[in-house]
């Protein structure tokens, strides 16, 4: 066991981990931050996406020890300071961008990373960026729409209901 220390959603956190402890496992099992989900074991579904030093990564495909000293952001830290939904989260609710909610944390974290890199993405840029985030419920329509809306684009022409 080795000690790791990292900042999670702005708060310094320490824990004892094995070499094989994944960042996702550290979050879920050790810190009881269960918003980050695990939907596959081949690094494809993206339910586990968090940000490490500002970059979207799959927390199921990174060891906790590798996050030593890092700044980690998870879904639990995304809401506004007053607890209200942030712009992306609010757009997901406004445009019905989630159903069962399981892929949603990863979707929101990927969307946040996308909009940081590309503040006004086109539809095809959004779709391309979501290559590593699988949703089985929504057919992606409302996710793509929500992300475009969150970027401040007018989505009223996109079929609503």
């Amino acid at each position, binding site marked *: 066991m080795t000690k790791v220390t990292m900042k999670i959603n702005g708060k310094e956190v320490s824990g004892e981990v094995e070499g094989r402890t994944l960042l996702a496992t550290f979050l879920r099992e050790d810190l009881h931050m269960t918003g980050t989900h695990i939907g596959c074991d081949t690094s494809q579904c993206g339910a586990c996406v968090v940000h490490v030093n500002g970059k979207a990564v799959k927390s199921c495909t990174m060891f906790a020890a590798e996050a030593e000293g890092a700044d980690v952001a*998870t879904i639990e830290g*995304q809401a506004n300071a007053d607890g209200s*939904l942030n712009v992306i989260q609010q757009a997901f609710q406004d445009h*019905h961008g*989630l159903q*069962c909610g399981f892929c949603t944390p990863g979707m929101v974290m990927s969307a946040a990373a996308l909009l940081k890199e590309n503040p006004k993405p086109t539809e095809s840029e959004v779709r391309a960026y979501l290559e590593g985030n699988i949703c089985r419920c929504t*057919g992606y329509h409302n*996710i793509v729409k929500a992300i475009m809306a969150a970027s401040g684009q007018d989505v009223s022409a996109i079929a609503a209901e």
Partner: protein
Amino acid sequence: MPKDSGIGASTKRREDVRFLTGNGKYTDDINIYGQTYVHFVRADVAHATINSIDTSTAESMPGVLKVFTGADFEAVGGLPCGWQVTDRHGEPMQEPKHPIIAHGKIRHVGEIVAAVVAESLTQARDAGEAIEMDLSELPAVIDMKNAVAGGTKVHDELSGNLCYDWGFVEENKGAVDEAIKNAAHVTTLELVNNRLVANPMEPRVAVGEYDQSDDMHTLHTTSQNPHVIRLLMGAFVLGIPEHKLRVVAPDVGGGFGTKIFHYAEEAFCTFAAKAVKRPVKWTSTRSEAFMSDAHGRDHVTKIELALDADNNFTAVRTETYANMGAYLSTFAPSVPTWLHGTLMAGNYKTPAIYVNVKAVFTNTVPVDAYRGAGRPEATFQLERVIDQAARELGVDPIALRRQNFVTEFPYATPVAVEYDTGDYEATMAKLEEIADVGGFAARRAESEKNGKLRGLGVNCYIEACGIAPSNLVGQLGARAGLYDAATVRVNATGSISVMVGAHSHGQGHETSFPQVISEMIGIPEDQIDIVHGDTSKIPFGMGTYGSRSLAVCGSAMVRAAEKVINKAKKIAAHLLEASDADIELKDGTFSVAGTDKSVAWGEVTLAAYVPHNYPLEDIEPGLEETAFYDPANFTYPAGAYACEVELDPETGKVTIESFSAADDFGNVINPMIVSGQVHGGIAQGVGQALLENCSYDEDGQLISASYMDYAMPRADDLPFYSVDHSCQTPCTHNPLGVKGCGEAGAIGSPPSVVNAVLDAINSGGKKVAHIDMPLTPHRVWSAMNNA
């Protein structure tokens, strides 16, 4: 003006807030003090005799509490099958025992052979690797037609690998044969409905608990129907009476059918928790899910469509081989029969129909209901053969469909069901509008300029939802009733908790069900909460599947609310010193007709719990009512779908350019949620048509056993959809006039995708009648190359 609350409003989902902030409570998020972990050792061969299993090393390894094998479950019942099908000759289907842990024989890759319970998951897994097995491998039974031809048996105690040979309607057979013989034209297609894996994004999880102090068992599980699990596991597997067994299904990350069934892992964790006197947790990996979640579809069909000289359909005859896998999963036998044969009339007035289904045991994972269940298989073959007939006859495929539409309702089909209502012309006309069918030729010309082929595919669909009238399904072999239940509990200050038997795992019941109650009573939606997913909190329920939640459980909720309102009116009448017949309820206020006397909802509810001024001689205090609702008929959502594709002839790659859906779901409670359901269904249908394929090799190895080989639809595989549900012929027999919308997209979309690709290919001059799904670039390119 769109409404902003109640029935018909696109109310934003309240459950989203917890999901969007990481506060959902899924089964894997549950950790119980003292919890242990189970690792299942699963078969890596498809078919073998187990000569011996040596667990001695494993048992002595660090952290191991106990190692279980099939022998530990000898006294325990097998996993039950909930539906008995009777074959063409009046004989019951063959029904083998479905053990919790393989005993004596392994029958599919992924079957549980041993289970290790340990302090940690890694310790359990380490010990699992130390279990030694002496197996004698047997030839794997994989191909269905070979399986029924004889040779190796999956179950030695059965007469062969045929589960049943079902004919429907057997009395129609002679007339159908005759009609086909005398037809002006017969179109025949042989096709495969590809095996799929449902793949909800949340893998299955089970946590078993046992409390010695009150002999109480609790199972937390990823289920669409906790009461059904309690019934099946308690009564048939472990022998635990209902009052000593609680089943909790908290937030569930998608189901799509595969979380209906009672699984071995649920029974194991419940059983083992008592055996080791500690909670036992199992979390499936995705790799385990591929070889232990029930699969879907997997039909091989020959369909013949007969037409007269005027292109009227005169008969349909089908022969289907339906894969059951190695064992009968909970509802498996009903899928290729009652959920498939009964829909073979489609939207058409074909007078003579005969359906034959041979269900077959193979050394593969059990196959059961997956979104649509039987109805996608029926729709696919019918809508493919109609398209091919149109091509052979040189007629417009939309016109051919129109000409044969059922136009008068109610309509009794030759396959035993009665459509209560519908308007297939209306949905087709709406489809032509939203898909801009008229503009297709210009779009095709544009694609061709760029060296691409373009195709337009259309199909209709009908489904039977709102499952189901209990007396009818009882006659058909169901071993359960299919009603549902709801309790409306009005609190003293007027807020309401509604306990519902339906389970929400993405459908948004927590938002849409209160819209109904809000509409009925006239209080704000946020005064109403839905409670679901816990047998200790809800009187009873049959759960969510078959697009039934609103049509069946919603109807129970309406009935319970009506009882509440009737009682509240009596209380109001007392308070207003009027006759209860004169009391009206509107916008949360009771008033006496024709007067300005009124009393608010909250005053009445308070009186019910503080009955100082109350008609105690006539009615009891309190305001809580339960209703069970058993539907009078199925509901029949129907519609018309169109897909437009572009095809790269050099590579065979198909791109979905547009997808349009015109559905008739009857009345709609929350249009936003309904559209979302259709979107998701379309994506799964497009996935089946173009991407997804669960494939076994001849040795029974699953070769698409992860997302590396099983192609899940991703955002860039799909376009924005155009969906419409403005054509509404309300269901005639349930109080809300609703039909159900959960499965339509998955049922209605595969044929239009395939029809579109074939349209594209044929437009390029290649004569290709059919390509089996999924239409991967390789398959399309090969078909074009061989044409």
